[in-house]
């Protein structure tokens, strides 16, 4: 199912997207999830650099990832899922992202959308979607648009026509859509309310385009999704904005997965540095250099600080899931924002210091070590880290609860 040389513009009726889900395994608990993630990571890391260099989308790898059952981690127990802790979800994401941060990011929206379903779906919708996910289905996303005033503005419209809905618009940053069996679309209805319409890639009028051209996270396929009068049955439509009108875990869960991706990149950079220094002759002089060793120590300290904040945030989000109200949501949003700021910082620090300690030889293009910086730099931009500090400060200084949207 893998495609060794993907042309840069492919339509959605290519491998992966339109296939029915392959049967997925069932993960029993947190421990099994972590073990599976480690096993998978050992495989994924082998050709991660090659995929990046060739911009080769990881179709086979994603298939293997979701077939492991790891994409069903957050399905509630009452629907037959393992409902592992969010701490575990974050750690699984970090483990996979350390191996290949594009693959680590791809299910981010899948988990995000599952939370929207949990928050806003009817019992029937939950039943159906959870069942699909437990069977190996992958959700993509077609949320953000370019050219609108802010990321919170959308031109895509949805309106009711007879017994169904019609969706039209153009999306970008559709991470996961190229790999998805189902693509949730955010669109504005006649009353300007935002709805979520779930389409299939092979639905008439749906086109998923591989035009993601950032220098980082190159194999996420985070490109365009075009919707041209796509017909959607009502059972595949659910409220979206509603997820932010009332307290839900949608924002914190979406964000903690992002933070975990960055943590994985930082771990990868620090490990690459260690391996590089210990495997080259010139590295000997660096490992004996007290100033270099101290800088390496600083990297470790900041990595562990970010890990500790991420774990702390995971526990707080778990608490939010157990008791969802305004105050627990605010605390969770803030805790995740703290983790995100810390993982952003160590991801950038480590991918820059990698070369400071690695020296000129480490810049050899064939080693492709700069992919870690490119991935860190691009991925940490999802939402601006400077506003994380603002949200945290406003909470602690002024007891102001953070704004509620997908990025907090």
């Amino acid at each position, binding site marked *: 199912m893998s495609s060794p040389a993907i042309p840069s513009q492919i339509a959605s009726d290519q491998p992966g997207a339109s296939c029915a889900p392959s049967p997925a395994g069932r993960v029993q608990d947190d421990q099994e999830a972590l073990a599976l993630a480690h096993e998978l990571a050992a495989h994924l890391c082998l050709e991660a650099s090659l995929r990046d260099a060739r911009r080769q989308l990881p179709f086979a790898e994603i298939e293997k990832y979701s077939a492991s059952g790891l994409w069903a981690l957050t399905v509630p127990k009452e629907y037959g899922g393992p409902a592992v802790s969010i701490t575990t979800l974050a750690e699984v994401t970090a483990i996979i992202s350390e191996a290949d941060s594009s693959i680590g990011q791809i299910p981010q929206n899948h988990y995000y959308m599952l939370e929207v379903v949990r928050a806003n779906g009817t019992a029937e919708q939950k039943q159906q979607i959870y069942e699909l996910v437990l069977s190996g289905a992958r959700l993509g996303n077609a949320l953000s648009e370019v050219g609108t005033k802010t990321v919170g503005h959308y031109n895509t419209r949805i309106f009711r026509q007879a017994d169904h809905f019609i969706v039209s618009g153009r999306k970008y940053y559709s991470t996961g859509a190229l790999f998805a069996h189902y693509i949730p679309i955010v669109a504005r209805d006649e009353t300007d309310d935002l709805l979520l319409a779930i389409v299939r890639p092979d639905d008439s009028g749906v086109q998923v385009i591989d035009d993601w051209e950032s220098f980082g996270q190159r194999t996420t396929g985070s490109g365009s999704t075009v919707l041209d009068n796509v017909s959607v049955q009502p059972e595949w439509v659910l409220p979206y904005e509603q997820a932010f009108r009332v307290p839900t875990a949608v924002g914190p869960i979406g964000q903690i997965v992002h933070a975990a991706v960055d943590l994985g990149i930082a771990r990868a950079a620090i490990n690459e540095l260690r391996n590089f220094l210990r495997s080259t002759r010139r590295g000997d002089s660096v490992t004996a250099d007290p100033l270099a060793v*101290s800088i390496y120590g600083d990297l470790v300290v900041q990595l562990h600080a970010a890990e500790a904040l991420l774990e702390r945030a995971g526990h707080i989000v778990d608490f939010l899931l157990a008791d969802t109200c305004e105050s627990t949501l605010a605390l969770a949003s803030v805790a995740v924002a703290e983790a995100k700021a810390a993982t952003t910082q160590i991801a950038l620090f480590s991918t820059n210091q990698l070369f400071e300690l690695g020296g000129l030889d480490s810049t050899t293009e064939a080693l492709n070590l700069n992919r870690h910086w490119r991935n860190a730099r691009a991925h940490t931009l999802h939402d601006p880290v400077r506003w994380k500090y603002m949200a945290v400060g406003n909470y602690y200084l002024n007891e102001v609860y953070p704004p509620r949207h997908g990025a907090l």
Partner: protein
Amino acid sequence: MSLATVHPPEPVSANSRSVPILQSEAEALAVARHLATEFASEAAQRDRTRQLPHSELDRFSGSGLWAVSVPKQYGGLEASIVTITEIFKVISAADSSIGQIPHNHFCVVDAIRLDGTETQKEFYFGQVLAGHRFGNAFSEAGTKNVQDFQTQIRPEGSHFLVNGRKFYSTGALFADSIPVGALDEEKHGQLVIVPKGTPGLSVVDDWSGFGQRTTASGSVTLENVRVQPEWIIPAYRGFDRPTFTGPLSQIIHSAIDAGIAQAAIEETIRFVRERSRPWIDSKVERAADDPLTISQIGDLQLRLHAAQAVLERAARILDAGRETPDDKEVAFAAVAVAEAKILTTEIAILATNKLFELAGTQSTLEKHGLDRLWRNARTHTLHDPVRWKYHAIGNFYLNDVLPPRHPWN
């Protein structure tokens, strides 16, 4: 050698106190928080007048909190390191001098646990449960490690004589007995628990640092102090084998700094909310609405939380440690504690500087006494240079080199 014969020269004051046995870690924390509220109210005044916290310490040790590390089999709570660091944080946030005073007490209880005889454990743990306070007299001027100690213990008849001079003896002035580090004829470092009032033992409060002013970290001199054999703990054994002694001492220091950092951030928030004026260019009505202030508070909070989380991680690692750890396990724990020490140092220094930047000139008026937070942080974080902790951590993770084990440290 029987501890039954132990008779301190004069009754320790602890005997006259009635000290509760704390039943749970939750109770211990509640007691600590309650005491902290009391200690906070006059901390600035004690600092200003260098007034030693005598009555506060009586309440502190009288609360049972100084006994929480006594093992269960000796009737203690055997609190986790997580809880012990939390207690130190809570008290130090209120008054970091009071927070630092029992530091050595806990280290001594640990030394007795590791190397005391069964009789010594029964005796001393019983004392501790009754409110007995250990001080310390370890450091000497100009020596780099215990092997350099000038303080000596020599046999004389059925007893021993100790002679020497010690500095930075935090807690000694408040102690019921003072554990003294001394070298025997074989150059072994012994820990000699000398009861207060023993002839020849004198304690002087000549601590003159600008921070931690009320710790009474002064000098102890020992002139022909006659000690009984059963007062001697062969603590050198604890450094001949891998133990968590060093990391325990360090993590308590780290917890104290975490407490100071937290206090500084709380004071910043209080001042900005209640007293600071908005800056003219900010065009906001309240200082607390200044976006640049808000985002800096955010930065402080997340650094504090990171330091706290890494401190807790280190404490969990110590708690998970086996009774007889190997070199590698101790190294891993020591490195984890060093990481915590770095982060608590950094946030303590940052927060005690930013306090004034965000609160403004008014906050520097001496009546507020807020500079004591910086003076305390700056002084207490100098116990050993943080720059070499980066090196130890890097050397462990990059080069698999285990950090050196420091005795008494």
